[in-house]
């Protein structure tokens, strides 16, 4: 329960923090930390406007997107606190639930018959497919390293014998990069862009409104917190006192969010056709990590 509570709590904070950091970096004061939450609250109280082309998919799938992500968040390790659902091979279900929510987002984009949305969907589908191996190779490497079998045990055991902060940092680096792709942040996608032709995630939700849009925005926030929590579990040792871990966890999440905010302020996005190279590079770094693990285990 603590694990779930922590993830949900941090998911509420991070979105506002990113916006705030970006504002400060560009010399403005920026909106309050809770502005994204207020926006979602407004969305819930607005009615929905549907495209006349759209059908039952648009009306139901944003809900499925969020519920799949919620179930996925139950498996995520949170700095040594046992997640609610943890079993042998749960990372497979975790990854596939992510894929399910992506599938649902893609078909939602197509439901309105808009070319803009379909364009974003096409990119989302391709990038999502290319980034999946990076996560799996990383987890396979950690499995070999720790002998753990579920997300929680893998990340906890990383801190046992032979642990070095180098591992934690590499894992955090890889997951951080995966987050940039999965959450459609700069340099892959600019969430604040205003040109439909260059959007990825934001363009897929152009025809969603009210309740549905709130669902999708909550999903993005939750997804960000999930990846942040993976990073936190990679760097926070599991055997510290619970209070220390909780505070460290929140600190890491906030630090991660501000780091993303800083990156977005000082980095430009890639040309659309360079994204594939960037994503494949992440996978290759993952493979490199795997090879390093093999060396440390004397498997060569």
């Amino acid at each position, binding site marked *: 329960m603590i694990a779930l509570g922590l993830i949900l709590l941090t998911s509420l904070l991070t979105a506002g923090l990113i916006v705030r950091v970006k504002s400060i970096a560009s010399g403005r004061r920026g909106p309050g930390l809770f502005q994204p939450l207020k926006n979602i609250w407004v969305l819930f109280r607005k*009615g*929905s*406007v*549907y*495209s*006349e*082309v*759209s*059908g*039952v998919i648009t009306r139901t799938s944003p*809900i*499925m997107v*969020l*519920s*799949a992500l*919620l*179930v996925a968040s*139950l498996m995520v390790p949170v700095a040594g606190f046992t997640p609610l*659902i943890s*079993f*042998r*091979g749960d990372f*497979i*279900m975790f990854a*596939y*639930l992510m*894929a*399910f929510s*992506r*599938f649902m987002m*893609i*078909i939602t*984009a*197509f*439901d*309105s*018959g*808009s*070319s*803009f949305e*379909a364009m974003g*969907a096409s990119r989302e*589908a*391709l990038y999502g*497919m290319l980034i*999946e*191996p990076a996560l*799996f*190779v990383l987890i*396979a490497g950690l*499995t*070999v390293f720790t002998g753990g079998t579920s997300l929680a045990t893998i990340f906890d055991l990383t801190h046992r014998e032979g642990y070095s902060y180098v591992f934690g940092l590499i894992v955090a680096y890889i997951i951080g990069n995966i987050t940039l792709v999965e959450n459609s942040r700069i340099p892959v996608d600019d969430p604040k862009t205003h040109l439909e032709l260059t959007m990825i995630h934001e363009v897929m939700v152009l*025809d969603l409104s*009210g*309740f549905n849009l709130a*669902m999708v925005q909550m999903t993005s926030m939750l997804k960000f917190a999930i990846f942040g929590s993976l990073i936190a579990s990679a760097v926070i040792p599991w055997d510290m006192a619970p209070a220390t871990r909780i505070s460290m966890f929140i600190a890491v999440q906030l630090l991660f969010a501000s780091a993303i905010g800083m990156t977005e302020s000082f980095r430009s996005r890639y040309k659309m*056709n360079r994204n*594939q190279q960037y994503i494949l590079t992440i996978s290759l770094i993952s493979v490199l990590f*795997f090879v390093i693990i093999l060396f440390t285990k004397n*498997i060569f």
Partner: protein
Amino acid sequence: MFYLIAILIITGVVLLAAGKKSSVIITALFLSAGVTASSWLALSELLNLAIPVEIVEFLTSAGIICDGLSALFILIISFTVFSGFIYSVGYLKPYVRTKPELWTKLHYAALLWLYVSMIAVVLFRNGFAFLVAWEIMTVSSFVLVIYEYDKKGTIQAGINYLVQMHVGMLFILFAFIISSEGSDGVSFDNLRYYFSRNSNWLVFLLFFTGFGLKAGFLLLHTWLPEAHPAAPSHVSGIMSGVMIKLGIYGILRVSMSLQGDMYVIGTSLMVFSAVTGLFGVMMAILQHDIKKLLAYHSIENIGIIGIGIGLGIFGTATGNTLVSVTGYTGAILHTLNHSLFKSLLFFSAGSVISRLHTRNVEQMGGIMKYMPYTAMAFLIGSVAIAGLPPFNGFISEYLLYFSLFSGIGELEFYPLLIFSLVMVSLVLIGGLAVFCFAKVFSIVFLGQPRKAMAEPPAEAGQPMIIAKMLPVIPIIIIGALPVLIVGPLASLTSGIFNPSSLPFDNAILLTPLRYISVGVILMVSIGALFLILKKVDERRRPPVTGLTWGCGYGAASARQQYTATSFTQEYATLVRPVIRNGASHVSFREDEIFPGKREFHTSSADLLRSKIIMRPANLFINLLRRAAVIQTGRLQHYVLYAMLFLVLVFILTLLEII
């Protein structure tokens, strides 16, 4: 075998003699009788029920042995053929008027023969009886494939299929003959004896080539993308759902008896299957013919099943029971799952095709509003085949990952390398399948119709909808409550494939599956909760409809929608080194003030087919054409040839060479 032929003749004669209407009813009766009898046999084997002694004696005298593996396949075959038959009643209705009466009756007779022969294939152990059943299966499915003989390319696809299947049979025959050395007959039961005395890989390779041609492994697959689009949809569903699985049955039956070389066989089968799966799905994405796309997905799924079998053999070789049992269980469960969702997908695609009269996805769009049930069926099939929760495809892929990750922790360098590569391929296969089915579902069923239609397409007829509902039920049950089926299946596979080792403890497998159930049920209930909240919200604030966002431009036509080609464009550039996809068009000239009509055509070539299969074949054909010089058509020349031959024989005899 005598009974088999008797059954075939009786059903054939009765059906052909029957009237137009009654032939369907008679087929239904025969089929239900067959389904009941064989399912009873299978279930009593699986549930350890007692079979009356007379029946056992009769079956044994007829050469029929039903073990767990046969029983499983009997159930899979019966279910799919039965739903396929229900579907065919609706699907063939428009054709009955245009085709000769006898031809339709023959079609139903062939459907029955196919069913009977498939059941016989999994029940016969004697090699020759097996091959006879195998041959009847091939011929009857050939008759089914060429039902629409008047369409362009159907006959060619059918003959291509027939020829390739006979090449495959030749391989199986060779394998049987080689393996019968030292024993009194040709049979699957002798394999163990042969394998314990000789090197295993050669005979396994022969069997694999023969059965792989049926299953559609890489390089043996070229008949699949031709035959499925040519066949009527229920036939595609049955062929892709169960008939190609009999190739898998054959491989499983042989791998049961393996005694040596298992390390090599297991690893190479894994790698080969991974490549097969990747190839299948990579080709599938670029297809615009919906049935060809599904056919390439069959190749992908055969690859996934093959990975499972490879893991099973590898696990047995290294004594890792967990890897072995989960690998085999995953393979068999995926065989079952694929038969469910692939027939579902073919049935739904068939309904769309029969309404729109095209197989080209670029001319479809917006069908979900007109055919909601078909669209839902296709959506469920898509999610299931992409291996996503909450449906059954996820469970079998989970088992394979489970097996891979169980092996990955405790391995030497080379197996670890192979396991990692196979794992990455499996991840990629999954991701590509999501990509592909998101594409095909969206393009076909969502948005607006891309082509003007004289009248809006009506929902498919009742038999077709019932046939689609049938596979949906097990798809949902296996997805939500996997423990029900995986538990017994794991016990069964550990009994069949690892009889010598310690009894396998299911608990390690069942606990995660219970958690998966919890996750799936939780997901559905959270979704339901949100849906209720939303309904409440909508009652207070009724939703309104408006135009789709178009940057302020409200008159976008349906033809401006994203197409399948544009959806896959970036992907197509990415895979260009492997898959040659070309576009051909004539560009406008500068002096054309009023441009005329232009055509634009895209295609994706199966490089393996053109470079590895067709090039040698064409060389051979050219060679034969050269040799045809001697065939002058003049009687004098032929007499001369005969005389030369006699002289040759005379000389050879003189020299005591022959």
